């Protein structure tokens, strides 16, 4: 079992990365926003932390921002280790929900 130390922001970011490969912070913010208020600086920091744990990898891509300037931004992918961490997190969360609702484990 992976030792799980994911916070809620990290879990949401990993869940977002699990849905589509190669996302920028803007993409992640767009996915997470409907579920939780999250800011770009926090996403960046969470991604750096998870990169150090081996949960995500990143590459660089040159894009044109809405202000017309070209920037080298990070494109992030979830790793197998990250996928295991988010799976475990989701299982634990489901366990909490089952317990709260009084449903016995399958």
């Amino acid at each position, binding site marked *: 079992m992976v*030792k799980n130390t994911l916070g809620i922001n990290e879990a949401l970011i990993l869940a977002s990365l699990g849905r589509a490969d190669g996302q920028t912070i803007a993409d992640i913010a767009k996915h997470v926003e409907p579920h939780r208020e999250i800011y770009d600086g*926090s996403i960046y*920091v969470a991604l750096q*932390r998870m990169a150090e744990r081996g949960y995500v990898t990143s590459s660089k891509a040159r894009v044109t921002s*809405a202000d017309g300037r070209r920037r080298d931004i990070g494109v992030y992918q979830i790793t197998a280790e990250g996928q295991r961490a988010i799976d475990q997190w989701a299982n634990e969360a489901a366990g909490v929900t089952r317990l709260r609702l009084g449903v016995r484990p399958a």
Partner: protein
Amino acid sequence: MRDDFLTRFLVEFVVRATVWLIERIGSSPFVDDVVHSIYARLERRGAIVAMQSAFASLPHAALSRVRERFAMFSIAAPDALDDEGAPLLFFTILYVARIVVMLMFLQVQALYMHGPLRLQEGLTIAIGVWLFIIIKGWSRLSLAVALAAVVYFHSKYGTPNWLAIVLAVATAAAAFISIGWVIRELCVRIAETRGVRSEIAIVCLAFWSIELLRFWIIAGTQGTIWIRLLGEVAATLLAAYLVAWRLYRYADHQGRRYPELYQKPSDALLREVDRAQARNGRAARRRL
């Protein structure tokens, strides 16, 4: 907020000004990633959300530069750059600023031996307003009441009298109520994001206790310059101690790589729980 042209223009102006600030103080990878996303928000959801995100990203920008600049931070600081770490560092920065201002005032008071501490009061209120901004709901209201009371009696009752003392006690009560709310809100935020880290609550408690002590001393002894100075020095020493203590704890955490922050159950315990759940499941099926 109204969604007219002028409002949008003003808010966009604030976003661009904040982004300009982020570009000046943040490290280059941080700036590229975050600014791109802020502009994407500006296009997608409107200016208000982009403005909130830009403001919230400012402390992270400063810390990204610190992390880039100092090897010590780059080795072990990533966890300090999260949602709770940034406000904590802000506390520290504000306290350092407070001490600098305090020293300036001591110089001025040594020259003139009297006069109101207006700039420092302004700084204190600015800190209060900053707390007011980061905290939500009823705690904002109680903080607002406390701050309003402080501003009121400071402006109206410059000389010592019983009413000033009554107002000081009322302010103290309001501030104590706000302490409860502040701690509760912060604990909820911490628990939501990273698990329990109680130091931030203690820092808040100490912060408000110091300010309360200071306000009480000033309100109760208006005109007695030496006691006021004594109160200021005591409050500043306490603040300095708090900063030192917080930095020590911070360094200690970095050194230990946070083992005590993540008090997760051990794998063996989790396996035991799994086995117990399986036994319960079998027993339930037998009963059925």
